[in-house]
């Protein structure tokens, strides 16, 4: 090994250690694809429930006028809530599996300092958003839930992108943009959810997988 090779090896060592110690780089693109797929399946179920409930409400209105619509909407709401929770759990578990596999392969601890830092930075905006949206629900304002989820999630991703692969920030920008547009199309939230949590994750996942994990 000649002098120049030795030097550039040294410099690339330094760069690699700086990067590995400050960013969680085993976030897998396949995780994005898996989470996006879960989101699409979830929205499909939710759309189905919404369709059926619309029909049920219409026929109820025709047959009996004194039906307790409030309790019906509560059942309907809780069914949607169940779907949302199940989708979230499925997305997180499947996303975790692929990232876990990748960090095992790279021999990096999946729950090290960098992963912790990433988690804290994604969670702060998301928990803030969660509490904010719960307050909206308590005041019976439902129209802003979908755009709110997208915006706060986007802010979380953008914030966390400093602690993982830098391209992740484009996912954050995309989610924020979709959420902002959704603010002016209240009632179409489900489509924006499918686009933001489904399609955008899948596109991001494919891109990241192509760029970093293909080989």
């Amino acid at each position, binding site marked *: 090994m000649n002098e120049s090779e030795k030097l550039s090896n040294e*410099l690339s*060592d330094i760069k690699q*250690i700086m990067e590995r*110690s400050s960013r969680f780089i085993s976030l897998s693109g396949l995780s994005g694809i898996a989470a996006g797929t879960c989101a699409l399946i979830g929205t499909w179920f939710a759309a189905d429930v919404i369709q059926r409930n619309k029909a049920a409400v219409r026929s109820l209105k025709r047959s009996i006028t004194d039906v307790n619509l409030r309790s019906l909407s509560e059942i309907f709401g809780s069914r949607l809530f169940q779907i949302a929770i199940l989708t979230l759990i499925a997305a997180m578990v499947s996303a975790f599996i692929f990232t876990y596999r990748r960090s095992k392969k790279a021999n990096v601890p999946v729950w090290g300092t960098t992963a912790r830092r990433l988690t804290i930075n994604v969670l702060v905006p998301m928990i803030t958003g969660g509490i904010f949206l719960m307050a909206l629900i308590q005041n019976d304002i439902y129209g802003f839930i979908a755009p709110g989820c997208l915006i706060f999630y986007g802010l979380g991703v953008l914030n966390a992108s400093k602690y993982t692969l830098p391209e992740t920030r484009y996912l954050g920008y995309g989610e924020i943009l979709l959420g902002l547009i959704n603010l002016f199309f209240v009632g179409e939230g489900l489509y924006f959810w499918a686009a933001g949590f489904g399609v955008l994750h899948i596109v991001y996942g494919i891109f990241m997988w192509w760029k970093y994990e293909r080989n």
Partner: protein
Amino acid sequence: MVMKNPIENLNKIFDSRIRLGIMSALMVNTSINFNDLKQLINVTDGNLASHIKALEESGYIKVQKGFIGRKTNTLYSATKAGEKSFRLHLDALEKMIRNL
């Protein structure tokens, strides 16, 4: 005219892969514990400890002993002097590469 030899600016203390690794990691983190450093640089306990000692003795890093529960958790961070010398060392390395 004689060109200034950039090797003069290379710091002897950083002339080791492990010490370079330790300093690189400490430049981009406020502090790191022993196990994370070990994992990062891929060395044995004893080896890492002796290089840390050398850097500590030259005043380039500082050590902070603490506990998490009952387990010791020793944190390392770069001193101002350490950061400065490491930057100079990197500059010198860069210059050498350009001149080669």
